[in-house]
């Protein structure tokens, strides 16, 4: 439904916190690509994601511009969720809405022009990502961090079926991150992931390095790094198994 839109996402560099120009002057991302954003806390990773999310036209503190297929997006593309090209999984995962999971998902589906019946599938998918099952009648405000993030991940995959997906620090939530990324990358999407997590960072094809608010470098993931990523995936599976064993109240055996 959205696959014929947004082939290229371009970031035109702006300035860092001191007003010096971004060393990366122009960055193009194509469909099917997963791109990382890395850098220390406060280096401007979330600001870069925010620039993309709101299709900055030089009107944010960084002065960056975001182009879709080489053009500035129109104002209604920037704001109408039915035309929205971007789905975002942010650090802000606490819900303030005073309604049930089912009611919320149905209303969100409506706002995106989808059938409210997809709510059931969102909950089903969310429950493949978290060890603590989410129930349709649960009140949103009582969900744990992991449940909220699992629900939002599934929501993005099913309801916010946008060609560009922005993910901000998915690793902090206690959900199955590799499955979550697989679910979000879907076919032909541009996925931008902010991360401190070595495995997620190395799952990308390129990563932008941020420093003092500016984009300073782009690193291509080397074959050597890809090998490290495969090893990390095994460690990650082991950790998830241990987590579930402990959650079930069982005794942990020796590593095999």
């Amino acid at each position, binding site marked *: 439904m959205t696959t014929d839109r947004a082939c290229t996402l371009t970031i035109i560099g702006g300035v860092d916190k001191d007003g010096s120009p971004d060393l990366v002057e122009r960055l193009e991302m194509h469909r099917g690509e997963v791109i990382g954003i890395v850098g220390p806390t406060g280096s401007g990773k979330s600001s870069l994601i*925010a620039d993309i*999310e*709101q299709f900055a*036209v030089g*009107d*944010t*503190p960084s002065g960056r511009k975001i182009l879709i297929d080489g053009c500035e997006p129109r*104002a209604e593309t*920037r*704001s109408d*969720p039915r035309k929205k090209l971007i*789905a*975002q*999984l*942010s650090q*802000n*995962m*606490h*819900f*303030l*809405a*005073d*309604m049930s999971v089912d009611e*919320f998902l149905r*209303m*969100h589906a*409506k*706002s*995106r022009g989808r059938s409210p019946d997809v709510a059931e599938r969102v909950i089903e998918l969310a429950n493949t990502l978290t060890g603590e099952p989410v129930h349709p009648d649960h009140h949103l405000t009582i969900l744990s961090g992991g449940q909220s993030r699992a629900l*939002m991940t599934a*929501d993005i995959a099913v*309801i*916010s079926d946008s060609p560009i997906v922005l993910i901000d620090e998915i690793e902090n939530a206690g959900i199955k991150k590799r499955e979550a990324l697989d679910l979000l990358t879907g076919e032909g999407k541009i996925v931008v992931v902010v991360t401190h997590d070595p495995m997620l960072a190395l799952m990308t094809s390129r990563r932008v390095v941020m420093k003092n608010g500016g984009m300073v470098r782009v690193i291509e993931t080397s074959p050597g790094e890809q090998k490290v990523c495969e090893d990390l995936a095994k460690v990650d599976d082991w950790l998830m198994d241990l987590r579930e064993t402990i959650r079930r109240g069982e005794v942990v055996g020796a590593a095999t």
Partner: protein
Amino acid sequence: MKLVVLAGTPGSGKTSVLIHAARSLIRYGLRPAVVKIDCLWTEDDRRFERLGIPVAVGLAKDMCPDHYSIYNVDEMLEWASSQEADLLLNETAGLCLRCAPYPDRCLAVCVIDVTTGPNAPLKVGPLLTTADVVVVTKGDIVSQAEREVFRERILEVNPGCRIVEANGLTGKGAAELAELIRDGPEASDDMHLRHNPPLAICTLCAGELRVSKRHHRGVLRHLDGFMEYSGE
């Protein structure tokens, strides 16, 4: 003279949004003047003064602040003309959510804060339902899905409005709002309100301080919705 009437729930970020928008308007070569209406006290005029634009304050004191804004519109427009402004930004202090201080010939802007929850748009009434532009603030505090649900709720009560997502801290959305203001209508000397103010015909309006229905006359609405006329 273009007229913008900006209203919204307390603490929603009306002043911050307006300051960012005023900055963009100045960049477009317009000459805005600001009238800030408040109830008892304000120092927001100092924040506007830093922009170097004419600013005046009206304190409604013991008058309803919305009524006060409404019957003072001509005085505000005359003052703005005397300041050689071509645009009057009137920030109101609406509190009871029953009035909407928007004349027909203005750009009516309602500022509402997303942290008030998705049921809030249903509670705000004519302030929201008769606005041309609804500015949604504090969206960075909730998830994208919750912002979109909030937006859907606004469109349920005001299907024709233009929604602007803004951030009073970073200035996001200010340029978009400024464009809408630039293209907004000219005020006239024969303007009407878009929505009728509430019935203000009981003895509380005339200064009776005692509580309970037995002390009051006029049209009184019971808790169950029944309306009675008490008096001669």
